[in-house]
């Protein structure tokens, strides 16, 4: 049951103002997005149309704490098919960013390792300007294991033992992969992160 007194009527504006969220209110609930979604085919609860409806209604808490927010594959099928140009893929990303802000402020607990992964990915970029696979895996696994470097390394080795060996044999994870490839002008990349991410 929806408790009208618990609705947050400002939630819609919050999303509309977030980059990528501007087309939210154009949705007329046709379900085209959900019908073509490859995730909805696999995960029965997954329903982007419903997330949009709940957002429009102001069900802020329910939307932001919905673990399904974090399993979108950003494949753009919904965006390509939506008759109302809602740009659902970008919209879900905007909602995820609002959730992350809440989580950082200690107001929400996110039930997914995805924010951790994305942060670890962006850290590599910030440092080197390019993706350093090994650095990403080490940081991500450390985070997953509650910040313990040793536990992270052990878990990573367990998950990637076969894969790593396979890639190594094909020369895809040679000694070169142990060191990051860097852009020369890392200061330019640092500036991007400073100014955009407010770091």
């Amino acid at each position, binding site marked *: 049951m929806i408790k009208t007194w618990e609705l947050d009527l400002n939630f819609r504006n919050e999303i509309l103002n977030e980059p990528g969220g501007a087309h939210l209110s154009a949705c007329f609930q046709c379900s085209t997005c959900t019908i073509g979604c490859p995730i909805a085919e*696999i*995960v029965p609860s997954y329903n982007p149309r419903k997330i949009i409806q709940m957002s429009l209604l102001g069900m802020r808490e329910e939307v932001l704490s919905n673990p399904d927010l974090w399993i979108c594959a950003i494949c753009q099928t919904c965006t390509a098919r939506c008759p109302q140009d809602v740009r659902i893929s970008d919209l879900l990303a905007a909602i995820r960013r609002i959730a992350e802000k809440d989580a950082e402020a200690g107001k929400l607990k996110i039930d997914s390792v995805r924010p951790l992964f994305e942060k670890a990915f962006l850290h590599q970029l910030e440092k080197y300007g390019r993706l350093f696979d090994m650095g990403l895996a080490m940081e991500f696994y450390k985070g997953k294991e509650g910040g313990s470097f040793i536990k992270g390394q052990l878990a990573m080795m367990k998950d990637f033992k076969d894969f790593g060996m396979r890639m190594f044999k094909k020369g895809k994870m040679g000694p070169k992969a142990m060191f990051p490839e860097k852009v020369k002008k890392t200061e330019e990349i640092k500036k991007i992160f400073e*100014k*955009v991410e407010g770091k």
Partner: protein
Amino acid sequence: MSEKKLAYHPGCPSATTAIEQDMSTKAVFEKLGIELAEMEDWNCCGAAEAEDPILVYALNARNLAIAEKDGLDIVTPCSICYYNLARTDKALREDEGLRAKMSEIDDSLNYKGTIKARHILDVLVNGIGMDELSGKIEKKVNVKVAPYYGCYIGRPGETAFDDPDDPDLMDKLIELIGGENVQFSSMKTKCCGGPLMMTREDIAFEMARKVLESAKNAGADCIALACPLCGMMLDAKQPDMEKKLKITIEMPVVYITQLLGLALGIDSNKLGFNKNIVSTKEILGKVI
């Protein structure tokens, strides 16, 4: 194609997980007499992990500005790099305020909008063109192929360069080289699960399984690809998937540039055929 030189944005996996795509792209363009000049100091496009559009625009404005200095169009072998570069190009062309915002961040992001970013598949079929390519074919590559396009080639509309539901640029190349396209339409553009690989392996494996098994059921000798993340998911992870889901797939997965390279008479080692994870021996046996 009039351009004889392009700025090459190889993308992060080019030196590691997708080395065979990088090798075959370079070899094919060399054979076609088009210079790929690797962009000086290119940076990562932000891939699928940079979710803030402003961050994506900033990272890619830097790349676009680098190529613009040399007056060259950018070509990239990666569908995600392509999408991020192309949507940045579009956004910056259309929005003066955004351009100003970029310049404010740093001078290196000062992009004027005078070049284009393209995907290799687009350059090969629509740029160089089928006529010119057909004149250079030396061998028949007699394979049955499931052409897999994934995301970002036919969608979203703002940057797409092929049909969203039934793209055919790779189909055309496969016909050109003497191969056969198997019935695969319903799977061509379905996401491989790549973006969820590290955070929801269970879902990602299920998505990839569907693609791989459809190709197998359609009687394909291999899947052809045009994106390194699809390669990671469908080829490099295939043995893990088989183990976890207790199934046998053994479906070779190659890049379209590798197949085209064979038809152009390029040596298979130069095309990185020994680098694919699932064995490609049988494919090489079908080159006449």
